[in-house]
């Protein structure tokens, strides 16, 4: 995989589901590029016509942008394991095929209903080897796939099967299951390959995503505990009448945090 240290991406869901479905992901990818992003995370659930949009995004990303192609991550909302604990191989193959159409070398999925059974790892390893794609396991907002214990159990089983998978570390998602993001960072730091920079705040009855600097969590300490040389993506609402300026400002803010000495 080409080095992607210090890259700052935008997860396209940041622009709002209704907005992205209305304009299409290419529109927001171009806006992200104009605002200075190094790449984007394309969201399967926000594709209106994957057969048309993925090749369009691939063509856009490969065009020279200041001499450098844009980084792409493909986000699949379907989990790696079905509710019965079995590897969802068809889902994985679908996600790999979509990543190929996009030209993404990173695929993000959550583990779903992983049941700590050893079977399935061989098939998973073979599928990823054949594809040449890095599967980044994300902590989501569910009890099955968003707690430290569930992910430790999964990674331990995968490691034991000889499959060392990197992780998408979503800084805000830990709050949804009452986990401490800082402890999680200390626990998983060695395998983190991609960071979702997301702050969270508690409304009376739910968590909502907010910019890192407005987070109720110890985001700075958490970032410090994570590897500095992996790509980071903004994943919180980006809104404003001058959206490009807002996006540029948030990218600069995230880069400034990265630039601070540890």
């Amino acid at each position: 995989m080409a080095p992607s240290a210090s890259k700052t991406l935008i997860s396209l869901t940041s622009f709002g589901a209704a907005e992205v479905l209305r304009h299409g992901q290419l529109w927001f990818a171009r806006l992200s590029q104009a605002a200075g992003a190094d790449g984007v995370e394309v969201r399967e659930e926000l594709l209106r016509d994957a057969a048309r949009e993925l090749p369009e995004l691939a063509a856009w990303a490969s065009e020279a942008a200041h001499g450098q192609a844009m980084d792409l991550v493909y986000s699949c909302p379907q989990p790696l394991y079905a509710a019965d604990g079995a590897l969802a191989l068809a889902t994985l193959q679908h996600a790999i095929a979509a990543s190929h159409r996009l030209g993404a070398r990173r695929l993000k999925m959550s583990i779903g209903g992983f049941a700590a059974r050893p079977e399935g790892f061989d098939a998973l390893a073979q599928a990823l080897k054949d594809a040449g794609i890095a599967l980044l396991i994300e902590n989501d907002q569910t009890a099955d796939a968003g707690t430290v214990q569930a992910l430790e159990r999964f990674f331990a089983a995968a490691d034991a099967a000889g499959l060392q998978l990197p992780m998408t570390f979503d800084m805000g998602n830990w709050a949804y299951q009452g986990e401490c993001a800082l402890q999680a960072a200390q626990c998983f730091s060695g395998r983190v390959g991609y960071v979702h920079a997301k702050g969270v705040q508690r409304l009376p009855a739910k968590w909502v995503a907010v910019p890192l600097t407005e987070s109720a969590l110890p985001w700075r300490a958490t970032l410090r505990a994570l590897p500095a040389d992996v790509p980071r993506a903004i994943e919180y609402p980006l809104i404003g009448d001058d959206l490009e300026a807002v996006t540029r400002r948030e990218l600069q803010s995230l880069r400034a945090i990265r630039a601070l000495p540890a």
Partner: protein
Amino acid sequence: MITNAQEPIIRLQGVEKWFDKFQVLTDINLEVRTGERIVICGPSGSGKSTMIRCINRLETVQKGKILVDGIDLTAGGHNVDSVRQEVGMVFQQFNLFPHLTILQNCALAPMRSRGLSKAEAEERAMKYLTRVRIPDQAHKYPSQLSGGQQQRVAIARALCMSPKIMLFDEPTSALDPEMVKEVLDTMIGLAEDGMTMLCVTHEMGFARSVADRVIFMADGKIIEQGPPDSFFSNPQHPKTQTFLGQILSNHHA
């Protein structure tokens, strides 16, 4: 146009409407005073959108009487155009012309219906685009704007016709949650300026802070109505209680 301060600007009397054999409005009686802010809520299919669409005759009724600013909409067709000039409407989908710029979208109707020159219409358009806080977007096309911005343009476009009444049919339903506020803030500004407003919405925070009266509809009927304080704190009808319980818990979920 007859305007009497003592007379309601909108009056619906015994209005009934059917879609084929399905009755969508049953014995609707409603009076709205000039400057009154009304929020209409209710479950899907309760007839609330149909009711406000009758007020500018986007829907016709089979029975009853509808008077808007002294004009009987149910008496015959020739007064409809003049009523529509007095009643602005904002829809869930923004319905801007995609091939026209924002400025052109706003200037079109005043030029065609009010006889304004292009310069006059554009001056008026800029006035209202400034009022909804997006004058900078005037020369862009709708596809270049966010949903919240497009809805604010839709409001500005309606205001360009200098309406006496504004109807809103779920104006924030197609927006991401983060964009709802910018549209509601615009509507609050209108309310503070004294515009007569009827708004179908599930934004109960807006209803609490802006409405003079909240109307609850179910099964094509007005079930309950009252000032927001009593409507929210002491709903009388079991259907109102159930609806408010659901919608308020959803908004906090």
